[in-house]
C-alpha cells in the first residue's frame, strides 16, 4: 500500500474535524484558539499534499502564507485573551455572555 495524496488529505480532514471539535468542546479561550491552530495546520497539510500530487508549487507557497497568518492571529489573539484575563481573571469563554439576545 502506497501512501497516496488521498491519505494525507484524509488525515488532514480528520485533523480539521478534531480542531473543530476542540473549538466546540473546550471552554478555555486559549485551548480553543489552539484548536483553531490545529485546523489551520490541517489546511496546510491539505495544501502540501495536493501540491505534491498535482506537481504544483502553488500549494506549498500557500502553506507559508497560512503559517504567517496563523502567527499573526496568535499575537492578536493572545493580546485579546490577556486583556480579557486581566479584566476578569478568567479565560473561560462560558463566562463571557454579557452580550446576547
Amino acid at each position, binding site marked *: 500500500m502506497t501512501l497516496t495524496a488521498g491519505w494525507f488529505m484524509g488525515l488532514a480532514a480528520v485533523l480539521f474535524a478534531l480542531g473543530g471539535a476542540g473549538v466546540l468542546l473546550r471552554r478555555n479561550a486559549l485551548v480553543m484558539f489552539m484548536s483553531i491552530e490545529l485546523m489551520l495546520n490541517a*489546511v496546510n497539510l491539505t495544501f502540501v499534499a495536493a501540491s505534491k500530487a498535482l506537481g504544483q508549487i502553488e500549494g506549498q507557497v500557500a502553506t507559508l502564507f497560512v503559517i504567517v497568518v496563523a502567527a499573526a492571529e496568535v499575537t492578536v489573539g493572545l493580546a485579546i485573551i490577556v486583556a480579557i484575563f486581566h479584566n476578569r481573571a478568567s479565560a473561560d469563554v462560558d463566562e463571557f455572555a454579557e452580550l446576547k439576545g
Partner: protein
Amino acid sequence: MQNAALLPIAPELVLLIGMLGVVTSAVLLGRDRREWGSIAGVALAVAAVLAVMQWLSLGGEPGTLHYSARGLSIVRSPMVVMDAYSAFAGVAIFSLGLLGLLAAWDLVETLGDRGAEFVALLLLAVAGLHGMAMSSNLVLLFLSLETASISFYVMAGFTRDRLDADEAALKYFLLGSLASAVFVYGIALSFAAIGSTTIYGAGGIRDFFSNTIVTERGVLLVGIVMIIVGLGFKVSAAPFHQWAPDVYQGAPGGAVGLMAAGVKLAGFIAIGRVLAAGFAAQIDQWASIIAIVAGISVILGTSLAAVQKDVKRLLAYSGVAHAGYILTAVTAGIFGISALLFYVTTYAAMLLGAFAIAGVVTGPREGPSPFAAWAGLRTRSPELAMAMAVLLLGLGGIPFTAGFVGKIQVFTAAASAGYLWLVVLALLTTVIGLYFYLKVIKVMFIDPVADDTDPIEASITTRTVFAVAVGVTILFGLVPWPLLDIVRDALPL
C-alpha cells in the same frame, strides 16, 4: 501604459506608507498632538483618487486585465487583478474608509496616545479590504481578509477597560479565526480539485473550467461550500451571523461603523469575484446554496431584529437580512454583480452613517445603544433624529432612497435567475424590516421624551459622515442613474 505595473497596488502602497507615517509621526509628535489624523485622511483620499485613476486608466473598457506582476516564474497566473470591478471597489472602499475615519474620530480623541495605533490599524484594515477586491489569487484573498479581520479584532476591543468591548473582541476573534480556518480549508480543497488557487490567467480556475469537464466534484463542492461559508461569515449571512450582533453591540460606537460596513462591502465584492467570476462555470452548484443562505438570512435577520431593543443590535440583525438581500443578486451570477455593487455600496454608506449617529447618541466609546437612550431624540437633536430617520427609511427600502433602488435591482436580478420564490420571501421580510425600522423612528419621534433631555451636539466629523450618508441615500434614491451606469460597467473579468 507606463508604470502600469505599480498602479494596481498603488493604493495599498499609499495606505501602508500612510500607516507608517501615522505611527512614526505619533511617536515624533508626542502626546496630545493628532496631526497624524490628517496623514491618514490624506492617505485614504489619495488611495481613492488612485482608484479613480485605475478606473480611468482602463479607458472605459470594462474588463481590461492588468497584472501587477508576472509572479513567480513557474506560476503563470496573476496574483492581483486590476479591472473595472476592483477599481470601483477601490473608490467605494477608500471613500468608506475615509468616512470611517471621520466617524471614528470622536473615539480617537478619547484614546489619547493610543489613537495613532487605532488609526494605523484602520488604514491597514482598509488596505486589506481592498486587497480582497483585487485578489486574483485565493490565497491572497485569504491574506487580505485576514489583514482586515485581525485589524478589526483589535479595533473591536480597543477600549480595553470596557468589559463588553473585551467580550466582543474575543468573540469576534475566536469565531473569525474559526471561519477563516474553514475558508482557507475551502481554498485548499478547491486547489486540490482544480490545481490552482488563481482565478485568472493560463492554468487558473477559469481556465480549468473552460478546458475540463468536471466529473468528480466531491472535493470541489466541499471546497466551494467552505469558501462560501468563510465569506458568508464575514458578511454575516445566516446561519454564520451570530457573532455580528454581539460584536457590533460590544464594540465601541465610534469604531463599529467601519467594521460593519467595510467588511460587508469588501466581503460581497469578494463573493462576487470568487463566485460570479471564479466559479462562474459551477453556478448551478453554488447558486442554490446562496439562495438557501439568503433565504435563512432574510428570515432570521428580520425576525430577530424585530425583537431587539438596542439600536446597534438591531442594525446588526438587519445587516443579516441585508446580507440575504444582496445574496439574492448573487444567485444570478455575473448578471447580478451590478445590482450587488449598487446595493452594497449604498448600504455600506447608510450603515456607516447609522452607526455614526449611534456613536453620537450613546457615545463613541460605549457599546450598547438601548432604545431608552434614543427616546425623544427629536427634541434632543432634531438634526440627528432626522438623519437617522432618513437612513432607516433607506435601509428599509422606502422609495426615493438608495435602498429602494438597490432592492429593485437585486430582486430583479434574482428573479431573472429564476429565484422568484426567494424574491417573494425576501420582499415579505422587508415588511418585517419596515416594522423595526419604523419602531426606531417611533422611539425617536413619537414616544414620549426620556428623562435625559440635554441637547446632543454632534461633532463636525460625525456630522460630515451622516451628512454624506444621508446625501448618498437620497441622491442615489432620486437620481441613481449615474451610479447605475457606473456599476453596469464595473464588472469583474
